[in-house]
């Protein structure tokens, strides 16, 4: 089952640069929440704070709270490695491990953590994750081929399979379709719709049709000017955002009259 995320007074900084200001939002469990907004307004930054991935960037830090089912990810005694096991991530560019086969890629979350897994358990997990990512039929006869030999869309679904194989509660996706052709994009969007049964999904997209097609909730981020911090303008049900947004800025962006 997915878990709900509460973000309270989140501010994110890259060194001295204040990237995102005062974000407050609720991301409901087992729903798809989309982040939209112009480039550079901090969508990726906010997404990465949801599993503490921003901490990999030297100098990046945040203040405020991110609660996963009520538990603050930024508590002193919370281990970021543990957080990322609960909150998985799929990136803009498909990034299967080049030294691993398709099968090894799916099992990477288990084997890289040095846990032993029996052959039959591994077979089951690989099939389950690849079925979950709608990739099983296409690759079941060549599981030992390298993951980077697949097409772009297949690679991205392989990355989704790899992410779900560690069985997270939440799946973060940063523009997962922006490097894909339209057919692969549809395949991934269908997949997102199926995955929300089991996971809470947050997806960043610069494609508004995509947000409208596959999300239940949409958050609109904006920034006042270049160099100013980005902020969340509003987050509501997708139909409301696209038909009756409360904020005129949202209306402007949605209807393309932006800037």
């Amino acid at each position: 089952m997915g878990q709900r995320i509460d973000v309270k007074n989140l501010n994110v900084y890259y060194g001295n640069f204040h990237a995102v200001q005062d974000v407050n939002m609720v991301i409901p469990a087992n729903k798809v929440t989309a982040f939209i907004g112009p480039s550079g307004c901090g969508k990726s930054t906010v997404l990465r704070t949801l599993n503490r991935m921003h901490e990999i960037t030297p100098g990046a830090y945040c203040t405020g709270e991110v609660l996963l089912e009520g538990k603050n990810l930024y508590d002193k005694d919370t281990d970021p490695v543990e957080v990322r096991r609960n909150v998985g991530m799929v990136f803009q560019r498909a990034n299967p491990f080049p030294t691993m086969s398709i099968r090894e890629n799916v099992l990477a979350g288990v084997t890289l953590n040095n846990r032993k897994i029996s052959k039959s358990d591994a077979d089951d997990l690989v099939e389950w994750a690849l079925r979950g990512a709608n990739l099983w039929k296409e690759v079941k006869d060549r599981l030992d081929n390298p993951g980077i030999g697949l097409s772009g869309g297949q690679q991205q679904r392989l990355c989704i399979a790899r992410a779900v194989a560690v069985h997270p509660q939440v799946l973060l996706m940063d523009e997962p379709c922006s490097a894909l052709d339209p057919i692969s994009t549809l395949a991934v969007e269908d997949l997102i719709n199926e995955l929300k049964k089991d996971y809470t999904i947050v997806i960043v997209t610069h494609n508004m049709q995509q947000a409208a097609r596959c999300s239940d909730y949409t958050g609109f981020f904006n920034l006042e000017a270049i160099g100013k911090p980005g902020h969340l303008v509003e987050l509501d049900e997708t139909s409301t955002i696209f038909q009756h947004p409360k904020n005129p800025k949202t209306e402007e962006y949605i209807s393309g009259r932006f800037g």
Partner: protein
Amino acid sequence: MASESASVDTTSDRGPTPDFDKFVPKRSYTQWRKRKDLFMRILIFLSFVVALIPLISVLWTLIANGVGRLDWYFLTHNMNHIKGGMPAQGTDDEYGGIMHAMIGTLEITLGAMAISIPIGLFTAVYLVEYSSGGRLYHAISFFVDIMSGIPSIVAGLFSFSLFSVFAGHGVSTGFVGSVALSVLMIPTVVRSSQEMLKIVPQDLREASYALGVTKSRTITKIVLRTSLSGIVSGVLLAIARVIGETAPLLITAGSNIKTNGNLFSGTMMSLPVYINSEYEKRTVNCRADVANCVSTIPMERAWAAALVLIIIVLVLNLIGRLVAKIFAIDENQK
């Protein structure tokens, strides 16, 4: 914009209109470019030929002079009981060999690898994965650069005096030589590994972290694994670079006519030192009434040993390429 707004004429706000015909390459220019291209091609090819001349001439001289004394006996015997220009006991045309020097070179090089690979690799991992470009990073980079410029004789003197201080004056063992060579190898290993680690895409590290993998395992199982082929070939090139070092081994490992299997005790012969010592003898005196005495035998042995040394370096390079191929990332096959 605001200053122009008084004017009703909208064209005044359009800015300049470039005349693109002016920028089209002229025909004469195109021809000149083609001629220049041909000229440069010839120049580059000639430089390539010039660069090849010394290489081919060295190989040719080595083979022509070295192949005469290079046989199985030469590779499997040492210089024990060899006197002057006389053949070894029980033979009439074998004059000693280089087995002790080859084994010594092997031991000393393995010792140097055992020291410099861990230190060099850990340093590179620190520089790329852990440091955030602070003072320590710059200090290490600076000293690695300095180290790569150390003349090899100085590395030998360093190792010699290090062991003189801690193990008694004038100790001469293979291991002292290994330390001297590792001083020369470490900067090369650091630099080549650092370059290889740097080109591992950040994406892969993030993908690993996003699966809940710790930093240490991300480094060992993703970053090092992905760059393995480059690191291995870098290390092999570093070995090929130091395996022919003579000066530091002359003052640290010394020379020996027998095979020494113990890296930590007794002087040890190595191929370059062997070549040097045979070369220094040049000729030996032969009495006219002794039939099998060859007065030029030291030079002949030096040539044959040099040929063996260069073959070892070539083989190391080939192994490097092979290993790089084996560990390389292949999209199509496994």
